[in-house]
């Protein structure tokens, strides 16, 4: 290889990080056991809640999970409101209702799961304004606007979880749970993106393409065509290279996006 490789060139100080992870895993062994309980069916959630109420979750993980919970609150309320508006006759979801009902079911489950894991440490649900101060004033009457926002929320969710994975690496149980939510959000993102197209085609993000200016921050950086030190355009087009890898967002960037829809 003429270029430095990912394995060879990414991080000379990897060893130190690896050791620290091993130590962290040992230290959090008790936590891992507790989280194994949390991954049991929801009926056991009450036990998990008691366990976590004893303060066994490291502050860093509580912080990440509350960040995730806030996003799940947003998604959950958004879809439930939309489905209610559909039933009320204000928002005609038509043939897309089954898709949104399935997504809504998952977001509700994610809220419940994170609440049960966090127990008394869980943050309260914010008050949302899905019109973003009027920018999306017809969100619950115009299916097009509803789908646009749904796509933005799902793509943001994928990027948000991805960005936090590294902060959960010390705990296999929490990390795996987060990854399992992450890929569900990606399934949602694909389905909603295809609903937004006519004809429906790509479920993936091409470069940083986006037609709604207010949602530009959701796609900033997605156009990347180099991973590690490897230029992917030697293996395919720039469009395909950008589609093949989804990019993370920092917590700050996610909070700025979510902040458009949070009143308090």
């Amino acid at each position, binding site marked *: *290889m003429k270029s430095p*490789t*990912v*394995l060879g060139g*990414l991080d000379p100080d990897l060893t130190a*990080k*690896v050791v620290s*992870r091993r130590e962290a895993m040992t230290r959090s062994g008790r936590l891992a056991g507790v989280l194994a309980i949390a991954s049991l*069916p*929801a009926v056991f959630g009450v036990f998990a809640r008691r366990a976590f109420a004893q303060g066994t979750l490291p502050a860093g993980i509580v912080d990440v999970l509350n960040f995730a919970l806030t996003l799940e609150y947003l998604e959950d309320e958004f879809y439930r409101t939309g489905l209610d508006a559909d039933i009320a006759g204000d928002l005609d979801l038509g043939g897309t209702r*089954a*898709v949104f*009902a*399935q*997504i809504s*079911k*998952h*977001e509700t*489950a*994610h809220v419940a*799961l994170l609440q049960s894991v966090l127990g008394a440490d869980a943050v309260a649900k914010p008050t949302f304004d899905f019109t973003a101060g009027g920018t999306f004033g017809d969100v619950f009457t115009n299916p097009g606007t509803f789908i646009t926002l749904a796509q933005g929320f799902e793509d943001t969710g994928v990027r948000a*979880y991805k960005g936090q*994975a*590294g902060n959960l690496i010390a705990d*296999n149980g929490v*990390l*795996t*749970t987060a*990854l*399992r*939510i*992450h*890929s*569900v959000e*990606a*399934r*949602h*993102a*694909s*389905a909603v*993106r*295809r609903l937004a197209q006519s004809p*429906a*085609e*790509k*479920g*993936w993000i091409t470069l940083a393409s986006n037609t709604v200016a207010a949602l530009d921050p959701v796609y900033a950086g997605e156009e990347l065509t180099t*991973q*590690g030190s*490897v230029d*992917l355009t030697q*293996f*395919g*087009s720039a469009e*395909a290279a950008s*589609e*093949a*890898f*989804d990019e*993370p967002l920092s917590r700050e960037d996610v909070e700025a996006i979510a902040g458009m829809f949070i009143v308090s």
Partner: protein
Amino acid sequence: MNDRAVPGAGELEFLSQLARATSRRKFLEWSGVTLAVAVVGCGDDDNGMTGPGAVSAADSTATVPATVAGGSAVTITVQAKDAGGRNLTSGGAAVAATVTGANSAGPISAVDNGDGTYTLTYTPANTGSDAVAITLNGTAISGSPFTVTVTSEAVSLGTGDAGVLNYAYALEQLEAAFYTQAVASLYTGATAEETRILTDIRDHEVIHRDFLKAALAAGAIPDLSVDFTSVDFTSRDSVLGTARTFEDLGVSAYNGAGQLLESADYLLLAGKIVSVEARHAAAIRDLLNPLSADFAGDDVVDAQGLDQSRLPANVLPLADPFITTPIDASGLPTA
């Protein structure tokens, strides 16, 4: 050897015994002059003993390796014998082999070694079981057809993070090969939407594969051999059904592999790929059952809203029917 006594004086008896005790060829090299005496003294009695009779295919034998690694030459030695089971010591017979089964070859003509033995070689590419039929002067020899099991030496994924990345590379090789074939011979009646999606996914999987190979550099496992004989590439249901299987499997594999990685950098890279695999899975599922809940169906997402997660030990058996190269995953981390 003892059916007729060697006539003559002590010298010939000594030479005969010496020839038996050592190798006759070496004896020739050691003492050419004395040999001349011996040969002359033996007259028409080859080896100083009874010569073999006419060659008999039914009594001739072959030494055939029971197993061989794919890509390596199989060397078979045929010993021509007479009806009494005595080895012939001169050549002249027509020996040939025909290979059927996992590999096909032949008829392959043997090299006549001129001493009653014949050498056959063939190089199997495919793993599996070969039947090697061997004939001498057109008649099957004893034991024919012989069975040769062709194996590959297992490809070791390695250890640590590199092992996990090789594991991902193996799965991406499988996916890339599948979509490459699917797009190259797209089933009749594919819609523009289906063509677009399958072509895009092919492009993505090829990039994933080539990226991981470049990232692993010298540590990358070799190209794996794949077997899609169970897929009917002319059938929409078969192609899309297989695609769904591969995508769901890929998602669960990356979800399960994240915890095995030590490096946060590699974890992020895996995360960048897995969400694209999940996007693929949802799109393929939507093609199969449009506008339904199947894109994230209850068969893959549980009541807690969690996608599937599988450890390598649970993924590789599901990929195994499609990958003919044996894979040794024993070095992978388990937690």
